């Protein structure tokens, strides 16, 4: 039994592995385990697996039980190692900071649409753009949402401007007819 295996709370007998039933000790050992324990266990699992075809029925049952438990322990060790390397997630609230304000649509983009859009339509158009922007910012991030907003603002302003121009032409024709 290697020191590393002892540290992980795993004991072995001649017939096969006997695993500790003291789970608190095992969990504490896994929590404190270093990568070598992890690697040692994987190596031992491979060795045991290679022996399985040559074992008698009783021995095979014990070996498979060990392998099943060892695989779970291996997974747990991997998870613990990953958790140890992952930086802790601290929320703004935990740090005592105010939560970040949700991203706002670009003001200049709003102004561009508002400039060409008819007054009675403006509230609905800008509201729809805001609604879609908020949905996109939440789903795909503020940068994509801002790019979407600008593309909408430019194309929409063009549509409104063309319509506005047509109206001016119609007005001119009408005035010519009247005057």
């Amino acid at each position: 039994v290697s020191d590393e295996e002892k540290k992980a709370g795993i004991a072995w007998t001649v017939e096969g592995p006997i695993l500790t039933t003291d789970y608190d000790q095992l969990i504490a050992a896994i929590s404190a385990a270093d990568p070598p324990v992890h690697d040692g266990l994987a190596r031992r699992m491979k060795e045991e697996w290679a022996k399985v075809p040559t074992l008698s029925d009783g021995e095979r049952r014990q070996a498979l039980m060990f392998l099943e438990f060892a695989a779970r322990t291996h997974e747990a060790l991997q998870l613990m190692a990953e958790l140890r390397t992952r930086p802790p997630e601290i929320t703004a609230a935990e740090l005592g900071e105010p939560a970040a304000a949700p991203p706002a649509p670009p003001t200049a983009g709003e102004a561009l649409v508002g400039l060409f859009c008819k007054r009675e339509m403006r509230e609905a158009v800008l509201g729809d753009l805001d609604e879609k922007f908020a949905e996109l910012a939440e789903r795909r991030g503020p940068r994509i949402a801002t790019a979407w907003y600008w593309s909408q603002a430019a194309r929409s302003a063009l549509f409104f401007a063309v319509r506005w121009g047509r109206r001016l032409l119609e007005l001119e024709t009408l005035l010519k007819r009247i005057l």
Partner: protein
Amino acid sequence: MAKDTLGQSEYLVLGLLARRARGAHGTALLDDLEEVSGRQWSVGALYTTLERLEGKGFVASAWGEPTQQRGGRRKRIFQVQAAGQRALERTREMMAAVDGAGGVRPVEA
């Protein structure tokens, strides 16, 4: 074009609006249009079409409640009117008549 027939964008917008019994506002229609046509419509294109349809009496609109997500602005809910339903039917009949005549084929001289 006859007054009770529809152009392509008018047919699309009016047809999609007719699928929603309670009417719809711009954002919902934009999603539907993207799904059906496979391209992203601009809000400007949608509203100029809706304005034209409203001018012809095919749709009517009413203001909804303001929401925080919309920057405190109200929704404008559009709904298809009886004249709009008739225009849709008339356009569908015309399209069916074209299909019944063997679709669009070059006319031999």
